[in-house]
């Protein structure tokens, strides 16, 4: 799922009116933008990659029929955070890599030289795999320093986080606020 969509329908409140639907949807969109911008940075304290600010910038309003509109968030991973789910490696991949160090936060292992899927291991590789026997987890470490940079896991389950979006009541209030501003 690539996009998270919030549908704003004024059917029970007002007669069909595109202008008021736009105003209401804009109110919802503004609330979602403020909400996403205010979300805390990553829990591990790594320097922020601006993920939620990016998500806020990706918010867009799509006009619907009559007095409805949809607010979409086109940012990878936002729908997954909201709905929850289990992530597994792509076909051909062996493990997911979770960053353990600030220097690799927001950076896939394949961004490192010589560590691409299908590459044969070489002495020039910056990273090397360390997978303890009988362990479900492995590590990617920096070859020179031995620092553990990534945790390797077969899958990751992300719990649904409904706080990604404002609560339903807040969304309704925001739609009403947009309409009230329009008719003020």
């Amino acid at each position: 799922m690539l996009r998270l969509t919030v549908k704003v329908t004024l059917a029970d409140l007002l007669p069909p009116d595109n202008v008021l639907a736009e105003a209401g949807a804009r109110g919802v969109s503004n609330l979602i933008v403020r909400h996403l911008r205010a979300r805390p940075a990553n829990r591990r304290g790594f320097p922020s990659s601006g993920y939620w600010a990016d998500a806020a910038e990706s918010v867009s309003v799509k006009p619907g029929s009559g007095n409805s509109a949809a607010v979409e968030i086109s940012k990878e991973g936002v729908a997954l955070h909201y709905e929850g789910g289990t992530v597994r490696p792509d076909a051909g991949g062996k493990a997911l890599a979770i960053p353990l160090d600030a220097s690799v936060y927001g950076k896939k292992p394949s961004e490192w030289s010589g560590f691409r899927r299908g590459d044969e291991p070489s002495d020039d590789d910056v990273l090397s795999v360390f997978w303890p026997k009988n362990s479900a987890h492995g590590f990617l470490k920096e070859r020179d320093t031995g620092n553990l940079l990534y945790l390797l896991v077969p899958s990751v389950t992300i719990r649904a986080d409904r706080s990604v979006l404002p609560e339903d009541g807040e969304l309704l209030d925001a739609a009403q606020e947009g309409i009230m501003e329009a008719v003020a």
Partner: protein
Amino acid sequence: MTAADKILKKALVGSGIDSRQWSAVQAGLRDRAFFSATVEDVRVLGAFRDAAARLAAGETDPSSARIAMRDALAAAGYRPPDAEDQGPGGIRNLMNERRLDLILKTNVQQARGWAQFMEGTTPGALLAYPAQRLVRVRQRRMPRDWTARWKEAGDAVGWQGACRDEFVALKLSPIWIELSRFGTPYPPFDFNSGMGVEDVGKRKARELGLLEDGGGDGKTSSPSAPQGSVAQAAPVVPSFNANLQATVEGIRGDSDEGQFLTRTFGDQIDIRNGVVKWKGELIQDVLAGRAKRAEFGECSRAFMEKAAAGGISPETVQAFSGRKISFSHQFFVEHGGKHLDPNEPYDHLVPEEFELLPALWRSPDRVLPIRDPNRVQAELDTLDGGKLVAVIDCRNGLKSIQKRKAPGGIT
């Protein structure tokens, strides 16, 4: 149109000029070009544009986008500059993470800024939220002095529809364009600025004296507002779009500006009847049926040298001198591959690949003889391992264009 569509509509423009020189190109042309300072290879720019569009659509993450961009650079045979000040960490190195991030972020943020601006200025959105506030959305270690820039921009536009005391102005105030390094009324207002906007409702806009009581279309301001704090706000949306168009109209090819554009961008730009367009835009127009034909410039020296090196007779090579070619979509839909070997695995081009036609004509990788002595087969390698193959007649121009699949059949 989505932010991703906006990126994909930009014409690929390769050039060796740097960002300072690019800033001398009018906003109207820059807005419609996908470029990166000193990047000349349009195949690389095509891959960069695709990565940026996928990121804007939420279809990929920044790390995967950078990997795709580095793959394109590697496939194009890019070698990072090795001078000390341009080394692995330098911004001039296209493989550098910071440089790739700058390309991605600037393009994605501009496209999203444009999309949000257009959505924020629909009749309903403007009625409810006629103004916006400049706000910090990302922290920066060395923030720019936005107070000084706001005052400078406000003074430059006579504070039309803008507050002196707060970073708030009507969405249609000219202050936003004046504030922007890129000449656009939406964020980003500068490279890596970390600044964005948030809507301000009608009631607050009235309170700030930006609107008359009862006014709400964002185009008027209060005559009873504090002296000098606001002035009549001009409608900027129509004038913004008109301005982008106006900046690229009325330019003659022999004017200083026209000569600068031709000298800098060669046959990538088309100046005709006072209207300036990127060649990539013309190709998109032809593909969409908005124009019948796109014409490309005279045969380049590089093409003729490749033809001579490829074993083409001197007479035929000479016959290409001064020859121009043109492209019409309908012709190639009907006749695309009929001049090529039916035993070879050819495909029709996808729309993005048609934009490589000027590059194939300007700087092909190979020009080879075919059975007809008046015709040559020009080839341009694509970054996916395939190649564009065109048959060109030295008297009648382009006869066909196809894509030869990469070894293994994947294109």
